[in-house]
């Protein structure tokens, strides 16, 4: 296909899209309502880096705290970029990039207390960062050396869950356990706009409402479920669904780290007070592909990405900090050096990750043992030993 014809095709597609919206039936208008962000969006920092007030959610952060949030976002982005590069170099089998979602993840992640518990999906690399999880631990499953690979109780950060929405029920059950224990910690469950269609997410809303469980549902609406746009998931803004389940929903600018922090902090406090769940819809955008395996140019317009680049979460905080003098040039330079060091460290650790020992296939399948696993382990060991120089057990 020539350059001209590609351009022509794109133009056609774009104009037909416009036409479809223009001649929309009532139901299509409802569908587009799911996309319109502005009216109900909680925002404390505009895309230009202007600080704005919100009557319900406000926050007063010191320069040091602002620098901390900025550093978290920059390092998370650097880690993510390194992992993407490592995938391209064949060191990782797959990577799910968080590019563009740093504010949603850092803002919500920094609202948590140590004794809170996080149930992530598979893209919450920046939340893991906030929890103190060694970022290289996240790469094991993408390199293919394990299927999870960390102890969730070390940092109260559960394993990544690949089947969409399953973890929202685990989060709800865990939160029910907190109530039973008489503790005052809270749980946060991460999922995306695609997962919001899953039965499990809706069942977790039912259970958490019925049992008044201290859980915050944090939906990162990044507009795309692989190639399916938000209109294929919902006809109402996602946060409005909470009302039908009997708890509050709020839509926050997911590219505004201050707003994400303020809104999540408020929802967690509500959970701790015994007032039950909250649904937060962080309205954001996935700048990269769903994973390194797909090609966004097949399903979305370049212009859309450009629109969102103007709302970049890191750039807007930087603009604000520079304008208000919360950081000097030395801070940004040092952070640059730290970023490069992180990238280098990640690269070295990933390349050094050993292929697990063969017998690991049979490890940890059962706590109390299982006759068939024992039998097959012995057979496999004998088979391995049958090769000269093979691994005998």
């Amino acid at each position, binding site marked *: 296909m020539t350059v001209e014809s590609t351009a022509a095709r794109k133009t056609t597609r774009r104009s037909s899209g416009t036409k479809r919206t223009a001649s929309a039936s009532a139901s299509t208008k409802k569908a587009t309502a799911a996309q319109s962000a502005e009216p109900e969006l909680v925002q404390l920092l505009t895309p230009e880096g202007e600080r704005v007030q919100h009557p319900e959610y406000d926050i007063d952060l010191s320069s040091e705290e602002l620098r901390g949030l900025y550093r978290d976002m920059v390092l998370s982005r650097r880690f993510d970029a390194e992992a993407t590069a490592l995938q391209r170099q064949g060191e990782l089998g797959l990577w799910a990039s968080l590019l563009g979602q740093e504010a949603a993840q850092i803002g919500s992640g920094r609202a948590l207390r140590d004794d809170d518990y996080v149930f992530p999906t598979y893209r919450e690399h920046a939340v893991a960062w906030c929890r103190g999880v060694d970022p290289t631990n996240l790469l094991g499953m993408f390199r293919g050396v394990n299927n999870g690979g*960390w102890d969730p109780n070390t940092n109260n950060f559960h394993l990544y869950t690949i*089947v969409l929405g399953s973890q929202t029920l685990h989060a709800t*059950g865990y939160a029910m356990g907190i109530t039973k224990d008489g503790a005052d910690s809270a749980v946060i469950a991460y999922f995306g706009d695609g997962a919001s269609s899953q039965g499990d997410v809706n069942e977790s809303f039912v259970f958490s409402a019925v049992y008044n469980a201290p859980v915050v549902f944090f939906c990162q609406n990044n507009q795309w479920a692989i190639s399916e746009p938000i209109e294929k998931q919902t006809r109402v803004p996602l946060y409005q669904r909470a009302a039908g389940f009997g708890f509050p929903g709020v839509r926050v600018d997911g590219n505004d780290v201050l707003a994400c922090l303020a809104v999540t902090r408020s929802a967690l406090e509500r959970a701790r007070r015994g007032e039950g769940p909250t649904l937060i819809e962080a309205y954001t955008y996935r700048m990269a592909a769903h994973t390194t395996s797909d090609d966004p140019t097949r399903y979305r317009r370049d212009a859309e990405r450009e629109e969102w680049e103007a709302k970049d979460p890191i750039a807007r905080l930087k603009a604000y900090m520079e304008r208000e003098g919360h950081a000097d040039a030395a801070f940004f330079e040092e952070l640059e050096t730290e970023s490069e060091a992180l990238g280098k460290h990640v690269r070295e650790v990933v390349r050094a990750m050993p292929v697990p020992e063969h017998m690991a296939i049979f490890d940890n399948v059962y706590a109390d043992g299982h006759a068939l696993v024992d039998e097959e382990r012995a057979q496999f060991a004998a088979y391995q030993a049958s090769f000269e120089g093979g691994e005998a057990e």
Partner: protein
Amino acid sequence: MAVQKLPLAKALNESLRKALETDPKVLVMGLDVGKLGGVFRITDGLQKDFGEDRVIDTPLAESGIVGTAIGLALRGYRPVVEIQFDGFVFPAYDQIVSQLAKMRARSLGTVKMPIVIRIPYGGGIGAVEHHSESPESLFAHVAGLKVVTPANSSDAYWMLQQAIQSDDPVIFFEPKRRYWDKGDLDTEAIPGELHKARVAREGTDLTLLAYGPMVKTCLEAAAVAAEEGKSIEVVDLRSISPLDFDTVQASVEKTRRLVVVHEAPVFFGSGAEIAARITERCFYHLEAPVLRVGGYHAPYPPARLEEEYLPGLDRVLDAVDRSLAF
């Protein structure tokens, strides 16, 4: 008095009561398990005595029941989940297979999943669609799960105790048509191992291998065969995963003939696995191919046809005759 004569259903109730008394982390969860005491009354009286925090009536959502049980287990609880009927487990199948079964391995052994999922299963009670299925092979096929099924009151009591104490997820199939059969229960006895098969009747000519609801059917068939001068051994498998092939092999080496009987469809059923392994282990001992008796490759039929679908005395005895004719 330690030994009592109790229906299987009541033995399960006693077992749950004992577990709730013994360990404050044990929870009973499911639809209607509270005031109603479960549709089969297995949880009768438990909520009254242990409260709504321990015996939890849940929303009507099977995936939600199992998924929240996983979260409770992560928090240190030991949920015993009731799925109301066999055919209703499938909305929870994803949580069981994709999450529950794999959690331990994914965490490199750092978390445990001490969850029991109780499922009344099998036919013979004249129920409507989705209330009479035998999906045990679907669970036994999945690594990370254990699958057991008692056939009498004593096993119902003790196997459930052992399943609750296990740090592994256990799918606990209850033979619903045997709920009302009375049997001896000694609550002070030392129970056998959870995953060990039991020789329910000694014999020398042929082994009938069964579990759950079909154990009684096979014992009745052996009694009829005895009148015809045939000595039939009946082995009650008790545990489907892991499966005690050693006990089965020992029996087959003695009798040289094996017929496996279950209610589930024969095709790709547990009998296929048993036939293959026993053929491998006992090839030179066998006088006849391992035969299987079970359901057909058809949806479970309407109640008026279920006696044709389910293995009964005649079909079991027919297989015995075919094996002995080799």
